[in-house]
């Protein structure tokens, strides 16, 4: 008995909300970053769920694309975080608010 698509979608929505919550409330830039990855993967999950449901491969292509982008993003983002830590000695996003009025 195959798992119905609703389950996948509910799971993906729960993961996405967890990720969004993490982005909004966690202080550590690294954790925020990981939460973003969680959101991306939630999106991947919905792509794949629909691809499975429809029986075609375009959802897979989109998921691969997202993975590639996420990898690039991770590389750049981690580099930025390291650079920020070197100059400010902190990765707490609450303390990184120099770009203000």
């Amino acid at each position, binding site marked *: 008995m195959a798992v119905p698509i609703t389950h996948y979608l509910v799971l993906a929505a729960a993961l996405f909300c967890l990720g969004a919550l993490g982005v*909004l409330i966690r202080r550590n830039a690294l954790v*925020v970053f990981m939460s973003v990855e969680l959101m991306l993967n939630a999106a991947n999950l919905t792509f794949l769920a629909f691809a499975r449901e429809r029986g075609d491969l375009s959802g897979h292509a989109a998921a691969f694309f997202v993975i590639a982008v996420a990898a690039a993003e991770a590389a750049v983002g981690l580099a930025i975080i390291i650079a920020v830590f070197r100059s400010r000695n902190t990765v707490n*996003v*609450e303390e990184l*608010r*120099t*770009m*203000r*009025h």
Partner: protein
Amino acid sequence: MIDCTGYQSFGQFLQGHGFGDTFACFFQKAPAEPEAMAGALWLIIALPLLGAVVCGLLGKSLGKANTALVACMSVAASFVLSVLAFWVTSDHDVLALNPFAPEPSHYSIAQDYGTWFAAGGFRAQLGLRVDHLSGTMLLVVTGVGFLIHLYSAEYMGHDEGQWRYFSYLNLFVAMMLLLVLADGMALLFVGWEGVGLCSYLLIGFWYSDPAKAFAGRKAFVVNRIGDFGFLVGMFLLVLMVEAFSHQASPDSFAPRGPYAPAAQVEKWRLGLAERGPLNFQGLEELARSLTPKANPGAIGLSTPIRQGPLEGHSFGGVLTAVLLLFLLGAAGKSAQLPLYVWLPDAMAGPTPVSALIHAATMVTAGVYMFCRLSFLVALSPTAMAAIALLGGLTALWSALIAFAQDDIKKVLAYSTISQLGVMFIGVGVGLFWAALLHLATHAAFKAALFLGAGSVMHGNGDETDIKRLGGLRHRMKWTWATFGVATVAITGVLPLSGFFSKDAILHGAHSATLLAYPGLTRVVWLLGLATAACTAFYMFRLYLLVFEGERARDAKLPEEKVKESGRAMTVPLVVLAVLSVGLVFHGLPLPYGGGQLRPMMEDYLSPVFRTSQLIFRETRVLEVHSEPSLPYGAWLTALLLAWAGLLLALYFYRKLFPSWAGKPAPALAKAIRTFAQNKFYVDEAYELLLVRPVKFLSFISYKVVDSLLIDALAVRGTAWVTLRVGAALRYLQSGDVQSYAAVMALALAAGIAYVLIRVAS
């Protein structure tokens, strides 16, 4: 062979007098092919234009002599081409195709250079044309222009800005030639504005003197008023032609030779599509078909316009409005009442400029324009009356002002205005050929007078006050002799050229009656006679004070230091003086075939004014009393009046002054003199009635509209609001990335919620 009734050329004249066919044919056939000449017409304009560019861009590095050489030679080359063009058109067999009518125009060559611009149904064509009218003007402009360039080479030889001067002067000649050669109102207007620009540049040539710069500005602004009328008149004319083309039917066209009216309508419409509504030939055909006909279906002057913006007005009414607006334009350019005030101030420019632009050529543009449109003028008795009356009033008015002017150039300036008024009388009474003849003779003798005045100033340390000159005849023999000849020519005390050209106009005003305005030509004639007498007085006053008698005690230079000007200045003077005498030939009634005595100019210009004469015959608005073939009586009157003026001047300035030297003048005479000396306070009246209110209005609009509404409210207000809003909104930028993300998430959630609710409901 030659089968026309009158003599349209010098050659035919000679032939009629037994000079033999060979000699006649020599003059008849120009040494140029008509087609080649038509193709070279643009060069007549392009050469002075090239001269202007060369003088303007390279003049400083070329040196003074070379600049003068380039400027003179470009005009000289243009003169040679003009002579050729003039010569070519003297042949009856020289034809130009008329795109508006089935038959070609004789005695003219034309060249079309394609569409200049087109918008909707409107089209303006770049086309040049030489016929007897523009040919005569070509000779005047380039001939007098060349002499004045030559004169300027010496006169302006010591000026820093000599290259600038020659550049402007060449540009002026090019623009004037464009005005003359243009084959349509649109292109004529380009020349019209171009000469206005050059006039402005040259009046304010010595711009470091604020008074002279102001005089240039004044000329420009006053001319704008006239040009406004000219432009509006042109728009109305376009609308009228369009309305005519909608309503035209074969009934409006008289059968002409083998051509049926229907074919003529077709041809006219084709011409309109090809050459646009402002082409002179199209307007001529239009005027021809607007003349009253027995045919009931024909469009006449009283036919109402059926469609378009002019709906409900009659063709004749619109035409009169157009011509009156053109009259406003001509009054500006040709310095007539009430817009003449710029011309006396224009004397701030160098004297050769006054001779070329403000006496011989540019100011006659109004007269030329009306001669060009003679067929339209002939259709409107109201416009003719207005032109004649305006000319008569201006002539007398400025002659009276000239009585008491002490500046040698101011006297000549008012004299120019007065003579232009006389030309306007000629146009107004339908004697277009006489107006043009007076234009040509006036160009010769007035240029001679102005150049003579320049020579006097040159030799006397730039003294212009005639009270502080005197006795120059011994020291400046050439200037004296030529000035004397020109004075005699303008006043007509001896029958030189000016006598016949002026008298042809006055005689015409005397013998013609505008039936719609009985008595008007009589008034104009009396005004003209009074002007003639006044002219003799003030011109001889000028002549006597400058050249005769003793040298004034408060003269700037002692008599022995006064010296005659050089060759480059005296040669043009002599040539112009010879022309002032020689042009008498064109005004003298000569026996032609058929035993009729007619001035040569009348015959020569008859092909150009054929349509207007036809209209006069058909409409019978102008009644000409039959006169004896030689107007001895009128000539005697004119001579007597001129001599009266001369004797009065002699009495006052040669005999009366010494005996009255000790006694104070009577109070009344003094008051009148002061009144005239102050130019009848016209400038002051304009200042009070026009300039001050306009300045007040502009002050108000500056303070309220510009300073308050635009500057304070619109410009600075917008900036202030933007600044305040920005200052308030910038507190939203906290720098906290997570709060931005929260806002984004909330907005997204709200958007999704909204969509879900919309879908659900």
